[in-house]
């Protein structure tokens, strides 16, 4: 219970700090819209093409945006050695990790919810036909991204080349979660429910989240204590 209270306090601190400065939100949002625009120029997609790769396109945008958000998770604590103060506070490593991952999740999910209508307008897609299913898959994929991204951001926070290292380490680990998220989003964008033969992808996505959340919570203390 104490761990969750500490995690909530850290998440609210991160979110408050982000909403005051808006440094990640503004840059990530504009970056996402630019990528959506670039894809339209690169492929000139027809409605049939969008049905085929709309989910993939959306998740590529989200994954690129996600790297910007999770990179800031621990990097924002570097000035004034705030990270040392956080680590030496009564909050455990697990609650630190959970708080930061929750804040990253909220920010990313918010950005995704703004990107969806932009995607719908630019590519002429009626994306809301199975809204609850779509939001559910977005939430699962985003948690995978926030969880793995924030954990690896803790590993790379002190590196000179962390902006390069973080995506290089996060993306391969994240593929088993992004692949099912893309497949399922593709289906849900057509307005259909998830077919029975796609349930394996849903199980993989949920299993990935359970496995990596457990691992991250368990190992967070080891990574953060210096």
């Amino acid at each position: 219970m104490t761990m969750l209270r500490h995690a909530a306090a850290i998440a609210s601190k991160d979110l408050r700090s982000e909403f005051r400065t808006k440094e990640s939100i503004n840059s990530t949002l504009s970056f996402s819209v630019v990528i959506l625009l670039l894809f339209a120029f690169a492929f000139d997609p027809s409605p049939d093409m969008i049905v085929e790769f709309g989910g993939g396109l959306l998740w590529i945008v989200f994954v690129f945006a996600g790297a910007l958000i999770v990179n800031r998770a621990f990097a924002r604590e570097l000035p004034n050695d705030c990270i040392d103060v956080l680590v030496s506070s009564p909050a455990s490593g697990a609650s630190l990790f959970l708080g930061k991952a929750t804040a990253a999740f909220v920010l990313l999910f918010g950005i995704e919810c703004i990107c969806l209508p932009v995607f719908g307008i630019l590519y002429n897609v009626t994306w809301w036909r199975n809204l609850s299913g779509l939001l559910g898959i977005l939430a699962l994929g985003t948690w995978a991204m926030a969880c793995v991204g924030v954990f690896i951001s803790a590993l790379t926070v002190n590196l000179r080349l962390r902006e390069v290292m973080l995506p290089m380490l996060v993306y391969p680990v994240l593929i088993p979660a992004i692949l099912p998220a893309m497949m399922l989003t593709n289906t849900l964008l057509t307005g259909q429910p998830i077919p029975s033969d796609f349930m394996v992808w849903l199980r993989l996505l949920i299993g990935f989240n359970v496995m990596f959340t457990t691992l991250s919570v368990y190992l967070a203390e080891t990574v953060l204590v210096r």
Partner: protein
Amino acid sequence: MRRKIILALGAVALPLLLRNLYVIMFLVPDEMEQGPIYRIFYYHLPAFFTAALCYLTAMVTSILYLVKKDQKYDAIAVSATETGLAFAAVNLITGMIWGRISWGIWWAWDPRLTWALICWLVYFGYLMLRSAIDDPTERAKNSAVLSIFASASVAVTWKAIEWWRTQHPGPVLSIRTGGVQKIDPAMEQMLYVNTVALLLLGLIFVLVRLRQEEVQREIDALRRYAHAMN
């Protein structure tokens, strides 16, 4: 002592590899449907087993490092990971050559192939992370944690064949098919013998790399000592 062990292992592995090469090329019959190209399978699958065992060793020694904080385990983990990457590359390359002949394409986005490549990239990231951290204790700790993360990806690779129906050939070894004989027993036996040979070769590589790592650490320690004296 270790030098003698490496030489002894080499004395067993080298004749075994040469003998296996002769048997695979000249004595084992062609496969009915695939023809002679199937012979690549005798290196493709054992290379995967060796890589998987190296990754497993890296995971176990990484956990041991986090528990005991002994640099010896970190040295074993990096040696096993590098060796595993080399064998995983052999696995991927032989698979691509087989795919080119059998499917007409170098690469198919088949889940098992894709996952094997993902694992390779994950462990390559492990080596990149190591090279980016200067402090030996920090490097050992962070890379041990990443190695445990990476092993989760390897677990998915291993199980992927059961989760998806793919164009990749299904399991053929009787230990994986519940005793059902899908290939000629002579072929299966040869596969096991060559697996032993490649495992021995992998062990030699790990031991040689471990010696290099230990020497490098001694040099680094002496360099730090010399800097401290100045």
